[in-house]
């Protein structure tokens, strides 16, 4: 067990996304379940950055068939995915 809770992962991911993807839109509110894609926060190149962040921070590397909206589509989805992989 690595000791990360879903809420802790979520806070880390939120910090990363706000710093790296929302720096030019500081006023934009991002809810935990908002679609990162549909809100235009993360694009397909951005997905690569998110994946790298998950590897660097949590040691989690999504396989090709895990790169889906269900796993990476929102802050909450990412947090659940990471915790599930760590479990």
């Amino acid at each position, binding site marked *: 067990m690595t000791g990360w809770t879903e809420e802790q992962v979520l806070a880390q991911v939120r910090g990363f996304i706000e710093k790296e993807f929302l720096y030019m839109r*500081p006023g934009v509110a991002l809810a935990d379940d908002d679609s990162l894609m549909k809100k235009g926060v993360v694009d*397909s190149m951005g997905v690569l950055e998110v994946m790298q962040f998950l590897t660097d921070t949590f040691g989690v590397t999504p396989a090709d068939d895990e*790169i889906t909206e269900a796993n990476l589509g929102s802050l909450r989805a990412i947090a659940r995915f990471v915790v599930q992989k760590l479990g």
Partner: protein
Amino acid sequence: MCGIAGIARLEPRGVDLETLGRMAKAIHHRGPDGYGFMTSPHVGFAHVRLSIVDLAGGAQPLASEGGRVVVTFNGEVYNYRELTVELAALGHEFRTHSDTEVLVHAWEEWGPAMFDRLNGQFAVGLFDRATQEVILFRDRFGVRPLFYAQRGGDLYFGSEVKALFATGEIEPAADPLGLDEVFTYWGALPPRTPFKGVQQLPPGHYAVWKDGRLTVKPWYRLDYPEARTEPATAIRELDEIMRSGVAFRLRADVPVGGYLSGGLDSSITCSLAAKASPFALRTFSVAFEDPRFDESAWQNQLAGEIGSHHAVSRITAGQIAADFPDVIRHTETPLLRTAPGPMYRLAKLTRERDIKVVLTGEGADELFLGYDLFKEVAVRLFCARNPASTARPALFNRIYPYLQGANRGGEFWRNFFLDAGTPDDPLFSHLPRFHLTARTKEFYGAAMRDSVGGRDALGELRDALPAAFGSWSPLNRAAWLEMTTLLSPYLLSSQGDRMGMAHAIEGRYPFLDHRLYEFAAALPTSSKLLGLKEKEILRRWARDIVPPAIRTRGKQPYRAPDAPSFFGEGAPAWVAEMLDPERTRALGYFEPAAVDGLVRRARRGAATGFRENQAIVAILSTHLWHERFLHRSLPAPLPAERADVVMHDGATAAR
């Protein structure tokens, strides 16, 4: 090819040679071989000349035999020999062997009905002394540029905006709405420009100035009268138009060369030119250090096959950054890509090898549905017809085989296209690109945001679509949008005319022969895009013209390195200056905190996506553009005493 400029005054106070000399000086790079002026109480013209046709007799401005019509002309009328014969039979006396003289006689004979008779690329100013009208007209697709401004009934025009500012009578200022169009479409849509009060004459339009009033009208409209089936004669017709189109464009009294990208289109133009040319053709290519952008292998193969003398400009990221300020001086607009940079270098190399005229493959992708965008449209429409299908979106993977990693094949990436809009939106085809480009606006500063207000650039475009638009097929609507929003406002100007003319190189475009456009527009779309195979009829026809390996290879889009050019070791000092937070704040186009965030990511190599790449290029180019153009500075005039032609309207002046 050349540069033109002029002034028409409401009051007969004349146009002095010093002012015309300054206008000519501002665009002297377009025509370093000579220059001339015409003055009269109401009208003055300037011309800088690049001698290509009738080296001895082609000086301008040029008047008709009786002096009624005077012309200043940039470009080419390829069918001038045929028109000369026709006009001579009607009683017109010719004193030169130039295409310029055709224009004055054609105006006398036919008036505005002359435009349809011209096969060529042209931007022209005419003064008709009989009616005291100044007429400006521009070719069908916008190959040659023509800008104008008005002040108190006076008209100012020129091949480049800097000629207008050189008068000292037009004050340079930014037009936030023009800039907002650059950040939507890559270029402001005519008649708008990034400069307040400065307009560009739309392609296929003419303007008549009389007594201080300017009337602008279209003379050519893009249309798509699509046939249900391909005519049995189509291949023969295509062959005739292509061969005569290339032959027309080899008409010159200097050697003509060719740009060779390694793709199908320039392979066709260079192959045909090599066959038709009495000498070994000179061909020119750009090559990149970065193998993702490089097409050298294809270029060398074709050059070997056609036996051309081939020269290569090897582009480094450092050169792109070093050239960028001068590139912006020539484009006169901010950019979202560095792609004009290599074209600037290529023109420089061509000029160093003593070639002034080159054929290029531009236009084929617009006419024959060559771009990936058209395939995206086909796949998006296919998916929209059965949204439940999971197999259909997989077709996107086949459009972009050169993209790697999660950038292709992923659900995120497919959804970028599928979520971009519905087929009932007339801009459906271009919404992914327009939305992606418009992400640059997230970096706008408060002042820019306020100036643009609630302006909806896409809404304005929807309102301005031609009446026939809805009757065309979705792919032809996409083709029209491509011709109108990208080809003329960006490709033919920022990557075409301006980069060539920076080094006095004239580009000629066999695929933009209007006969070929009309032929292609009338074909069924299946002759152009068959499944996901682009330019189908062109490939079928080119069987005996280009080697099979080139004919069957997929399209590789022309791209150049963007953000990495400006960061890292060897980055020029001006980059840091242009990104200085104080400057960003003072200019007001972009938000300093947002720019800081972007620079932080770019410096550590993280700004690798389209969005951030285009934002970096946009911010740097906007600040360079501002520094270059938004300060008043008058060039020293080209002296009248050294001009080839100084024409005075003596009789009228004495009155």
